[in-house]
Structure formats: C-alpha cells, structure tokens
C-alpha cells in the first residue's frame, strides 16, 4: 500500500504524529556551558537518562529506554573502537553523530514497515580548549543540530523554542548558577509540555498552549518541587578540572544539595 509516493508521505506524517505523542510526557533535558565545564540536567523516575560516552562526551536522552540503550551502546562501541584504533582526540561528537547514529535514526524513521526509534538525543562535548565546547542534538527523524553554549531536548520544537528563549538572555558562570539555570529552564519546558498535554486532553485545542512564557523564578521552583515527588533530579558534569582523561561525573545528592536553590535542596531526599 506504500508503493505510491503520496502514501509513503502520508505514512511518514502519521509516524510523526505517533512519535510526537510518545514524547508528550517525557522529561526535558537541558545542557549549558559554565566555568567548570558542561552541565546536563533532567528529571528521572529511576532509570538514568544521562550517561558517559567517552572521555569528553556525555549523552542525554528522551524517549523509550530500550531505544536509548540501543543507541547508547552503538555510540559507546564506535567511540571506544575509534579511540583505541586511532586516538582519544579523534573521537568527536560531530563524527559520531553525522556518520554514526544520525543515519541509523533517520533510516529507522523512514522505514515505515518497521518500528521507529523513539529517541531524542543530546551529545555534549567538552572541548580541549576553552570556548570549544559543543552540543549536538538529534531528533527522532535523524535531523541533527550543532550548538555552542546550550542545548535542550523537549517534547516538541515549540517547547524547545520556549526553553531557549528563557535560557538565551541569562548568563551563568559558576556551577551553582548553572545548576539554578538548568533547573529553571527544565521547569519552563516541563510546564509548557504539561499545559499542551492538558489542552489536548480537554479537547480545547489540538495546538500547543499559547499562554505567556512564565519566567517568574518562584513559579518555576514551585513547579519543580511539585514534580520532584517520586522522581529525582539528575545532574551530570563534564568537569574541566577533574584530573585524568575521563571528565564525566555525576553530581551526588550531597553536592547537589549544596548547589540547588535553598528551597529546593530541602525537598531533596
């Protein structure tokens, strides 16, 4: 039934709709560059969504855990074989994405007889020199983008746009400022996603919510506090100052407590 081109286009369109629904209640991912390195943040129910890929590469994902695991393993294998056969300096996020997983994700998306990969991926890469940090994001259809200072993943591109609008004018230098910023940006995204979802559920409109962007810190922190029930804040850092070749480390609960805004750290168990 897909032999005619327009049917194939229609099938891909349906697939887009199906995938958008899968991400509707996912947890956004935020990454920002600060003095100490690159900070990644998301909220998870227990299965982590932030991982180490290579010495200077970190991975954040939204979507189905099994699909994320499959692509994470692909990245890990490619990175380590390349690092062994050539050198650690040749393992770059750009090569892994462009020649590695982006074609795989795109192919899975377009092969309409097979299941697509329910994934959105962010790769953060700590540069060898200051100012050379890099982010790559890959959408479920294989489209990838490169960014320098920050990157976000969220259910839809309009939610991502809102998060970027909130994030862009703000500066963060210290790790504490970066933690504060990623938490609030996450809240902007999660709040927008929930509003859009509720609107769809109540049949008031099939489109995204069109209300004003909430930027009031207190509202955002209250939202986070509500969402923290049964979930955990996950933060990972590609730390410039850590000795040795592997720069990735997760922020443990003690460190996170000290870095979070005070009214949130008390809610952290």
């Amino acid at each position, binding site marked *: 039934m897909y032999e005619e081109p327009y049917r194939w286009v229609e099938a891909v369109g349906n697939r887009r709709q199906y995938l958008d629904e899968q991400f509707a209640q996912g947890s956004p991912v935020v990454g920002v560059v600060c003095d100490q390195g690159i900070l990644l943040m998301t909220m998870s129910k227990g299965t*982590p969504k932030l*991982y*180490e*890929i*290579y*010495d200077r590469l970190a991975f954040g994902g939204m979507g189905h855990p099994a699909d994320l695991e499959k692509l994470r*393993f692909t990245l*890990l*294998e490619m990175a*380590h*074989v390349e*690092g*062994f056969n050539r050198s650690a300096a040749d393992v770059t996020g750009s090569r892994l994405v462009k020649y590695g997983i982006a074609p795989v994700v795109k192919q899975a998306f377009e092969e309409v007889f097979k299941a697509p990969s329910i994934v959105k991926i962010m790769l953060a890469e700590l540069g060898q020199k200051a100012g050379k940090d890099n982010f790559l994001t890959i959408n479920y259809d294989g489209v990838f983008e490169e960014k320098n200072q920050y990157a976000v993943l969220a259910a839809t591109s309009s939610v991502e746009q809102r998060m970027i609008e909130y994030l862009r004018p703000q500066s963060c230098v210290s790790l504490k400022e970066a933690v504060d910023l990623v938490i609030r940006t996450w809240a902007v995204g999660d709040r927008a996603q929930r509003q859009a979802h509720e609107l769809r559920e109540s049949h008031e409109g099939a489109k995204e919510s069109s209300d004003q962007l909430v930027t009031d810190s207190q509202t955002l922190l209250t939202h986070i506090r509500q969402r923290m029930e049964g979930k955990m804040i996950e933060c990972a850092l590609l730390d410039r100052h850590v000795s*040795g070749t*592997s720069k990735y480390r997760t922020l443990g609960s003690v460190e996170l407590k000290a870095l979070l805004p005070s009214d949130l750290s008390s809610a952290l168990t």
Partner: protein
Amino acid sequence: MQGDFYQILKEQGYALGMPGQSGAGQPLTTATTILAFKYCDGVLVAGDRRATAGNMVMYDRTDKVLEIDRHCVMAIAGVPATAYEMARVLEHSFKYYRRTQLQELSFEGKLRALSKLLKENVPAALAGTGAVVPIFAGYDADQEAAKIYFYDILGAEFEGVEYAVSGSGSPTIRGILHYVNTWGEQPLSTMSQEQATIQALRLLTCAAEFDSATGGVNREAGLYPVVKLITAEGVTAMADPYLRSLFESNVSKGV
C-alpha cells in the same frame, strides 16, 4: 551487551601479539627493573626508565609504570611493544565496561583481564618476540585494600602479599626486599610515604649497579625513576623535584 571490549576488537579482526618467525633472533627491546611493595597508605610501584635492545640503550625516558585507570597501574617488564598494547587494551576495556555496565569492573575482573591477554600472547612470548612479565597493582574497593599481583609470561597470576619484582634487575633487589622486610628497622608495610619512596630509589639504584639493562638516576639529565602511589584516593605520580630532593639527601651519599 556483555561489556567486553576485547571481544569487540577480536570480532573486528584484531589480534594481539602475533608470533613472528623472522623476528626471532633479532635483539628486542627488553630488560628492566620494576618493583611494588605495600607501605602504610597503600602500594608503591616504581620502575627504572631504560629500554634496551641487546647491549644497546634504546631510550632512557621510558615510563614503565602505566596508569590503567584512577585506581590501577600496570608496571611492565619485557617487550614494550606488546606491553604498551596490553595496557591500551586494558585501559579501553575497563573504561568500556564502566560506561556500558554503569559500574566499575571488580578488581578480580581486572586481574583476570590481564591474565587473559597474557594467555592470548603465549605464542608470541614463546616465539621470543613478545614476552611480557608485568606487575599489576591497584586499590580493591570491595576489600578496601591496595593489592599487588605479579604474572608469568603464560598468564598465571600470583599475589605479592608484601612485595613483587620483575625484570632483569629484579634478582638483585628481591633479596634486599626480603632482608629489609624481615630484619630491617621496620617492615615495609609500616613505612611512611617518604620512607617508602627512599627505599624505592635505593632499590632501583642497586639494580642499576648490577644490571646494565636497568637505568639508574641520571642527575645531569634530571632523569629519575617513575614512582607511583596507589591509595584509596587513587593513583598519584611522584614529581621529579620531590624525587630529586629525596635522592640527594638519602640515596646519593652512598653511591
């Protein structure tokens, strides 16, 4: 999905230490002195810096005490090409395991990984083109203790309860280590970091005295042995200025 990096390499056609008939009989870069012993905070591992081929000195700045991860080192004696390759395989294997399985490979698992590589290397070792006799030392997080293991060229692993030595200069210092540990002023395991470092410098100086394939201290060139300490906090390399000051105040007067 087993987290086995070496298996992935092999599936891609990688082979460690192929025996080379044409290489047999050629002078290979070998010979060395490496040592490890327990001191009060953990384990000290040290090695001289000379690489020789027959009676030729190939290089005087070799680092034979290789950091495999934050808590483990492999000190190498034997053919450096194979030894460095083994160290690279191990380093990538441990990282790959940690990153895929989201937990550290156990200390026991790390020991077996080296043993496996040595077994795979037996044909090259017996052909005379790739023998490696390493010491592996690290901090065992489960047992909360720093440990030393030494191997033969076939891959058998033995625990050095108090110390281990390897390389052409090792017979000289093995007896000294036994003597110092048994009848010295204090056992090695109670020595402070400074006392342990002085012992290591003296032992390597002794080895260099009697083994031409072991490089001693070259003060003119500012060349000192490599000394690394393994404690619960991880691996620390001793800086040359520190070694120089200990050498000048505690070792050189007797040389």
